[in-house]
């Protein structure tokens, strides 16, 4: 399995998109996305195969090329279970994103080019083992977001695009500082695996950790640096929101874990309690803030803040189970929230409103879309059989293992959010799909077209698949999580 194909394929797709014209564009993008999905699945199969064959190397399929001898920067790629899961998530979301944008008319070519570029950045980020290259790919995924919102957005799109880009750039700046700090304390190397073998003094770790964690935290919408999320999502086009929430926010979570926590275990221990407090606040506070939203996109954006809080909580708990739960939550939230935004987009395309209060009774006219909305809502509130449940429960069980009042209280606070989540999800879902049809014009709406059905069913299948048989995903993630937590435990 050549990992570089994961970078080259989207690159090829992006270039081809630029070269073709008119109606071909979306088909090329679609074909590219399908191939990416196939590649991601192949990667997962090959990876499981290797593991089953007893390959216990931490990173598989490694390749290394020195790019710049002077400062020791090289392209180093390799995957463990976490990367594989994230790559799979990225490919699923990007295929769904391409599908829901089928009817986009404004500057189609550029739109698909940017989408593919975003996916490219994400793939590169997830497989990089060199901090510099990792950072490079992280930045690649920021700029398309700015353009996607600024050009194809709605509402206060310029404001939102600026806010998002600036906040993410601010995060990047912090990451850069932390990265350089690592570079100079760990023997002038950007290589994650070699930094991991360097003894970094504890007080240096305490110094560098906040830069990296907060920097990546901005990407993953850590409280209180989450405010780009509501504005960004509400202005972004549907596929943009899906990518933003489904992939981009996962870049942050992945970075927090892979770079900050993995490379700086002492720092993680030092700041774990702060992370826990912040994420517990985010979970509850995000849930309560969601309850008051009237715009579906704002609602899902705030609920993302709350749900991502579970990932950060899991990371902050520093136990193997909790970290596995955090990773499960990343995957689950990525799928779920992408689907949620897709459904919101479908509703908006038809009703031309996103206000919960203006819809009603859509189950009658849009049975397919409404059913999907139900499913994704149930996933969001943690219904067993869907992926959200598995992730949240793993986080809770993992969090409960640390037996002191502080951790217990944080866990209970986080668990309490499942009630609030139920309140806002049911309120939104019931108000939009149930009750009498509010608007006469809604009676003539058409249910989902084939591309929308395909996108929705793809994501629903993934959500249900993980929810029904979580074992394989958990088994994929657990060994990798264990390596990270073992470092923290000093094993």
């Amino acid at each position, binding site marked *: 399995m050549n990992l570089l194909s994961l970078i080259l394929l989207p690159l090829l797709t992006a270039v081809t998109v630029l070269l073709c014209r008119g109606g071909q564009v979306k088909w090329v993008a679609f074909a590219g996305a399908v191939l990416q999905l196939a590649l991601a699945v192949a990667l997962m199969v090959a990876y499981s195969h290797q593991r089953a064959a007893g390959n216990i190397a931490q990173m598989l399929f490694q390749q290394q090329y020195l790019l710049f001898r002077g400062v020791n920067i090289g392209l180093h790629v390799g995957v463990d279970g976490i990367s594989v899961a994230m790559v799979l998530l990225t490919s699923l979301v990007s295929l769904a994103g391409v599908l829901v944008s089928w009817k986009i008319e404004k500057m189609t070519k550029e739109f698909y080019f940017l989408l593919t570029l975003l996916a490219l950045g994400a793939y590169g980020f997830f497989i990089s083992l060199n901090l510099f290259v990792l950072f490079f790919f992280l930045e690649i995924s920021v700029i398309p977001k700015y353009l996607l919102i600024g050009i194809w957005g709605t509402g206060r799109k310029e404001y939102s695009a600026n806010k998002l880009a600036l906040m993410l750039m601010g995060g990047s700046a912090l990451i850069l500082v932390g990265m350089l700090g690592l570079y100079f304390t760990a023997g002038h190397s950007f290589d994650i695996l070699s930094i991991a073998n360097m003894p970094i003094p504890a007080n240096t770790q305490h110094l560098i950790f906040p830069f990296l964690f907060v920097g990546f935290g901005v990407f993953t919408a850590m409280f*209180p640096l989450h*405010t780009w999320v509501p504005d960004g999502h509400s202005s972004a086009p549907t596929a943009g929101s899906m990518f933003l929430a489904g992939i981009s926010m996962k870049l942050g979570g992945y970075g927090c874990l892979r770079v900050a926590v993995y490379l700086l275990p002492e720092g993680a221990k030092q700041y774990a309690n702060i992370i826990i407090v912040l994420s517990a606040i985010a979970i509850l506070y995000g849930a309560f803030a969601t309850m008051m939203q009237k715009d579906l996109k704002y609602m899902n954006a705030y609920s993302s803040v709350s749900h991502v809080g579970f990932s950060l909580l899991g990371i902050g708990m520093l136990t193997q*189970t909790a970290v596995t739960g955090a990773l499960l939550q990343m995957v689950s939230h990525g799928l779920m929230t992408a689907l949620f935004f897709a459904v919101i987009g479908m509703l908006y395309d038809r009703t031309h409103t996103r206000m919960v209060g203006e819809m009603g009774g859509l189950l009658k006219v849009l049975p397919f879309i409404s059913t999907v909305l139900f499913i994704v809502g149930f996933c969001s509130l943690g219904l*067993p059989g869907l992926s959200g449940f598995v992730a949240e429960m793993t986080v809770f069980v993992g969090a409960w293992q640390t037996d002191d009042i502080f951790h217990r209280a944080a866990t209970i606070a986080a668990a309490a959010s*499942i*009630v609030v989540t139920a309140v806002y999800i*049911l309120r939104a879902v019931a108000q939009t799909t*149930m009750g009498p*049809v509010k608007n006469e014009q809604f009676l003539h709406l058409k249910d989902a077209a084939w591309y929308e059905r395909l996108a929705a069913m793809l994501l629903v299948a993934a959500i249900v698949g993980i929810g029904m048989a979580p*074992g394989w995903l958990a088994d994929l993630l657990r060994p990798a999580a264990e390596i990270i937590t073992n470092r923290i435990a000093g094993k």
Partner: protein
Amino acid sequence: MPNVTIIALIVLLPLAAFLLLGLFGKSLFNKGGGIVATMMMLVSAVLALYTAYQYFFVYGSTGGVYHQCIPWQITWLQFYNGLSINIGFLVDPISVIMLVVVTFISLMVHIYSLGYMKGEGRLPVYFAFLGLFTFSMLGLVLASNIFQTYIFWELVGVSSFLLIGFYYNRPSAVAACKKAFIVTRFADLGFLIGILIFSFCANTLDFSTLIQRLTATGSNEVKTAATYSFMGISALSWGAVLVFIGGAGKSAMFPLHIWLPDAMEGPTPVSALIHAATMVVAGVYLVARLFPVFAIATPGVLQIVGWVGAVSAIIAAVIACTQTDIKRVLAYSTMSQIGFMMFALGVSNYGGEQGLGYTAAMFHLFTHAMFKALLFLGAGSVIHYVHNNDMAAMGGLRKQLPITHITFLIACLAIAGIPPFAGFFSKEEILLAAYQHNTAIYYIALVTSGLTAFYMFRLYFSIFWGKPYENHSAHRHGEGGFVMVLPLVLLAVGAAAAGFIPFGHFVTSDGSRLESSVHVQFSLLPVGLALAGIFIATWMYKTDSDRPARVAASIGGLYKAAYHKFYIDEVYVFITKKILFNGIGKLAAWFDRSIVDGLVNLTGTCTVAISRGIKKMQSGKVQGYALYFLAGVIVLATLFIYVWK
């Protein structure tokens, strides 16, 4: 050993019905969907009966003691070595009994729905949801792992939500289904945390290991658990209380009962299945499942269970006396009867004669399922006929609906505890257990059973006697034909005869046989009270008169309070609307937009302001620039000459 395939079929057939009708209902089964689902349910019910027979009479007992067996179990999700969610089948007396109850009632409701729901739109969806519910309930019943219980617990909750909201274009139904889900969800939070505590104390989630570890005196787990406490209460007790909160929410125990009356917005057969016979007793089942832990490790919590049950029983009975919506009366009656089961568990001990309450609770669960489902289906027939839920709109229906009338009367006699109907035997056992262990609860129970007889016959007389119902509509369909009558008759047979099953032989707290006999002199008092209740109801409601109004006026305040359900709903509305929504929710939303986001925007504004200040320097005036240049030269010159010599 039990046959895994058969048990799997019992569970999976309803699931198959759900998937089949849910995915292809519209295209393939628009007409015949109900029949298909019913046939599948029939097979499932037959297999369940077969399993029960096999368990109780073939392989279940060794030396007269029924034991648990787990014919099938897989690891569904591993948390860490030693702790995992396992999905499996746990076969023991209570799960087998529940299998029979759930499949049988579900079958009855399926058959009944064929007639009752005829002509409704979305019929495949309705039967699909019924299938989903039945599947989830069976999964819950057979759960071998406490987390498996939780999983199916949530699933029954959601199927209940979907079925209550089946008439989704009715705002009241939408409100009711949300309320039901959220209130039980709140209770489930307790359940979840309770599970976490148990899992931490016992380091397992499997029921059998968990019970074994937490009840063995001197085991490591008990010792470790004893070192943890919070607010002076041991961790285990907290766990038990929290798990019970979950059960109380699902079983509509006071003060988490507020969702049940509203849940009557669902189609009536659904109310019979979910909100009377099966799902609402899940709380009782949960406590029974963990009974050894409650009884041995945390007897204090069992006291709480008993008191919550008793209080719920009497409050619900009082409220039921004043309601006029027939389904709501039945809902409160359900709550009251579940209260009976709860406190029966609460007054029980583990093992032998002392475990009578346990047997009685499960017995009552069984008989109650029969007669309450019958009552609801009977009420369904009445509503089907009258197209109205209100008692005041009914009267004298015994001539129009003869079979419904007779079966309804049997159910009323059963619930009132009149021998020889089923309710008499189970209720008598409960009272006996209460009498032996907790006198205060016994008296509460006595009063409640008197009230039960009163409000049930108030209902009966209001529907079938009194001022005759006037037939306005030309279109009449009588009792709805064979499919609607058959379940009534079958259930009536059950309600009349189920009491003669020697339940103590099969279901006891420790699996060994428990002989029960009827104590005539003990039964005199409760039966007398029940007869008195019936007599008062006859006096007040058999003929149309102003007596009810006079009685209501004479007890004024109490009547009003009971009529308004003791204002508990209002308290909840206050807490949720005023405190959670307008208080915390609005505050959080405002805080986020104004403070947190305000700070972000402030950073932006500050940057802009600073640059606006600095940009004045770029005036475009050449002489100004020259002046800066000169000033710079002078400063540098000064520095070079005097400072950096």
